[in-house]
């Protein structure tokens, strides 16, 4: 299933037609391996040559999307999504619809948990200037909220953030921060309430 969307060109600012796709096909995984992985390898080499501190390296470069998809295939609780533009893979996301909220005001309620969200290396401001497209991550986060609404979870979403993405979830999505989670490598856990979802969608 596909939905037409528009991405913003990182240089011209023009809207570029793209597709938001429910599912991640074998061809998409092949594209990820043949385009994202070499780009990450290049970044790693450049960073190593320039002695860039490891904490600034892409934290998700080791994510094996092929393995993630294989592990969750056929399971209704996992929903994979991808974004394609001009024949190129621009974003990937894996949602889990069987998690429960932790914030006191919505504790025990169902939410959509973002297991993994990644945009192509050339769409990241810390790796590429200008980026090919801007706002791919926000489109995927918006989709997670829409899936939550469609599931009758009222826009509630949750996620553990890698350190490099904290600012996005804190400042862009304005989610509630629940602190480090020992069961999740001490990554910070974030949750969005229905009110926060409404505010995000209105902006």
């Amino acid at each position, binding site marked *: *299933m596909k939905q037409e969307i528009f991405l913003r060109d990182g240089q011209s600012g023009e809207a570029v037609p793209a597709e938001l796709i429910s599912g991640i096909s074998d061809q998409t995984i092949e594209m990820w391996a043949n385009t994202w992985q070499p780009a990450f390898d290049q970044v790693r080499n450049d960073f190593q040559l320039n002695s860039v501190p490891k904490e600034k390296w892409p934290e998700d470069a080791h994510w094996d999307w092929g393995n993630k998809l294989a592990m969750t295939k056929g399971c209704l609780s996992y929903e994979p999504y991808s974004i394609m533009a001009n024949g190129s893979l621009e974003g990937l996301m894996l949602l889990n619809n069987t998690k429960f909220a932790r914030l006191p005001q919505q504790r025990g309620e169902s939410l959509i948990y973002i297991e993994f969200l990644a945009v192509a290396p050339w769409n990241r401001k810390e790796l590429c200037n200008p980026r090919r497209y801007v706002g791919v991550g926000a489109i995927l986060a918006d989709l997670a909220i829409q899936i939550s609404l469609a599931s*009758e979870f009222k826009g509630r979403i949750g996620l553990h953030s890698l350190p490099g993405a904290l600012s996005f979830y804190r400042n862009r999505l304005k989610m509630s921060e629940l602190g480090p989670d020992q069961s999740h490598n001490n990554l910070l856990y974030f949750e969005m309430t229905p009110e926060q979802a409404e505010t995000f969608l209105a902006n």
Partner: protein
Amino acid sequence: MNPTKRTMTLNLTDPEMEALDELSSRKDMSKTAVVRQALRLYQMVDFRVRDGQKLFFENDLTKEKSELMLL
């Protein structure tokens, strides 16, 4: 994104329908959404158990764990 949906008739006993009504009301979700969520959860539990895993509930305060019995 609206996937194609199919309709089915569900035959429930009175206690089962009461439980569905109660969950639907408490969660502020339609009965369809509750049944859909129950299916997702049951399938996930079934996958894990068939994979040799156990399902536990943990008390947040005491950290006491209790295994969920699957009959």
